[in-house]
């Protein structure tokens, strides 16, 4: 009831002034809108996501449906991208593979962003010894080369598990290895923000600590977190593809773009059946590129200094 009154009154106020007030998020959108390349990235990404989500409506086949009378077929009207050595429709597998690849990207990015911003936030806010311990830990994680470590963990943890479980293990591995970069950024942000006078002012007004964190600190770092989430999603898709290509990520029969590119490891396939490795390769390229474009566009749009 009270909020309704306030809303009505604030609308009245806006009518008085005519001039519209521009909030920070609206400004981000206005700046983002001007970037054609970033918008292109968003459109490509939306198409990829929609085609993965609505895969069952776009193809009559199921991804695991084998047809031994029609193996290794070239692209035709029935099978747009041909079939693989088990007679599975390749276009269908590409769509369903997108589901897995994008999901791995989203969930690993989510894990990495959650870990990174929580650890960075705690380190920055409490400082001192806590900060020292957490940041040294982050540096340790950071100083291992990603691929050898990921391969080792994957080989040890994911040796005898079902393909489904393997997918989640891959998400965990990627998420848990890629948070240190973000944690450093968030820590730096919180460190500088907590010295800002508006935080002191809130303290002087008697606002409790948790509200200061939620209302004054986090909203001021959220821009960086969003950008970093987008970029780490692209990295996660790349990492998943790399691991799956090497046979240590998501394993068949679950299709992903990464393990579909595996066909290129066979020299005969590489030369004679390009439809088996070009489409998933292009899909990875498009996904990673569009997410990176989106991330870059967001970064420029969120940074108030890049006003052009």
């Amino acid at each position, binding site marked *: 009831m*009270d909020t309704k009154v306030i809303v009505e009154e604030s609308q009245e106020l806006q009518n008085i002034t005519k001039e519209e007030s*521009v909030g*920070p998020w609206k400004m981000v959108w206005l700046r983002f809108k001007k970037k054609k390349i970033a918008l292109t990235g968003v459109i490509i990404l939306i198409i990829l996501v929609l085609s993965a989500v609505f895969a069952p409506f776009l193809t009559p086949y199921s991804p695991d449906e084998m047809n031994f009378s029609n193996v290794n077929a070239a692209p035709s009207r029935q099978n747009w991208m041909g079939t693989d050595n088990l007679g599975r429709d390749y276009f269908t597998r590409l769509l369903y593979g997108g589901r897995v690849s994008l999901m791995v990207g989203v969930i690993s990015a989510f894990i990495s962003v959650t870990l990174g911003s929580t650890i960075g936030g705690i380190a920055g806010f409490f400082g*001192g010894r806590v900060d020292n311990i957490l940041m040294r830990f982050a540096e340790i994680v950071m100083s291992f080369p990603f691929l050898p470590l990921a391969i080792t963990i994957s080989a040890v943890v994911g040796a005898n598990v079902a393909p489904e479980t393997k997918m989640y293990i891959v998400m965990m591995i990627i998420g848990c290895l890629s948070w240190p970069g973000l944690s450093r950024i968030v820590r730096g942000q919180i460190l500088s923000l907590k010295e800002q006078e508006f935080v002191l002012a809130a303290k002087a007004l*008697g606002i409790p600590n948790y509200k200061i964190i939620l209302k004054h600190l986090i909203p001021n770092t959220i821009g960086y977190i969003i950008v970093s989430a987008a970029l780490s999603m692209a990295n996660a898709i790349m990492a998943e593809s790399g691991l799956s290509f090497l046979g240590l990520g998501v394993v068949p029969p679950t299709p992903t773009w990464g393990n579909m590119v595996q066909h290129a490891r066979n020299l005969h396939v590489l030369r004679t059946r390009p439809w088996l490795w070009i489409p998933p390769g292009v899909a990875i390229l498009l996904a990673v590129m569009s997410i990176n474009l989106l991330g870059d566009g967001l970064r420029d749009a969120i940074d108030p200094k890049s006003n052009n």
Partner: protein
Amino acid sequence: MTTPLLEVKNLKKYFPIHKGFLRRHVGDVKAVENVSFILKAGETLGLVGESGCGKSTTGRTLLRLVEATAGEVKYNGIDVLNAKANDLRKLRREMQIIFQDPYSSLNPRITIGEAVGEALREHNLYKGAALKERIQEVIEICGLADYHVNRYPHEFSGGQRQRIGIARALALDPSFIVADEPVSALDVSIQAQIINLMMDLQEQLGLSYLFISHDLSVVKHISDRVGVMYLGDIVELANKNDLYDTPLHPYTKALLSAIPVPDPKMKRNIIILKGDIPSPSNPPSGCKFHTRCPIAQDICKEEAPEFKEYAKQHFAACHLIDK
């Protein structure tokens, strides 16, 4: 004599210095050492001094934004430095602060109405339409328009932002305000507006100010009494006319002689102090000012001078005043 609104006794604030991997405690930055003063209701006490002499730290320690190392602060008889969370919460409504930098003192992500209303909501003072009304009232007495409530800080100029900062401090209807260099970051013409606003508000609302500044002319304009700080100590404290007309401490004399005069023909005897302000982590022995004092004697190096009343309500700390 009536009890003063604010009584500060021997306030100390040391910031510890930690070094090395194990963060060993190797020393202290003595930002504030032995600051004592009283503030009467409705009065303005100016606090001047060089950068780094502990003016701002004094102000922040009074509000417990920085925890004091030692000393006693009494607000209306209530012990501020040892107040429990609940009592401190009540004190927050009485004591507020205005900051120097109008840019970093406002959260860029919340509207002006939200910034001013946040504390009112936190302390459950107003609700619904009354809250809205109170926010507008405060904003208007600070010289802003009612439609500004839905705007964000980046839509305002420096002077307007400083008005918002004042409005935020006034929302809770406090009676004591620490003004931490409120005009140092503003243009001279805007400075005058803000100073006049603060003086009007003082008259209307009966406020008391602790006005921290390094600008002696501004302090002279707004204050009733003025304290001069050097390296964490108050070296001289007097009514403003006494202080500006008959300064006792050599440091005050040097400061006053450095005030620019808008007349190129006037001859002035500027006392130029040698060297820099010493490090507060390793202050000089005896009188801290002896390293730069033009009239320093042997006794100054050995003994710290007492802070004594030399004329009526005119305090100073120097061995050589009587001589």
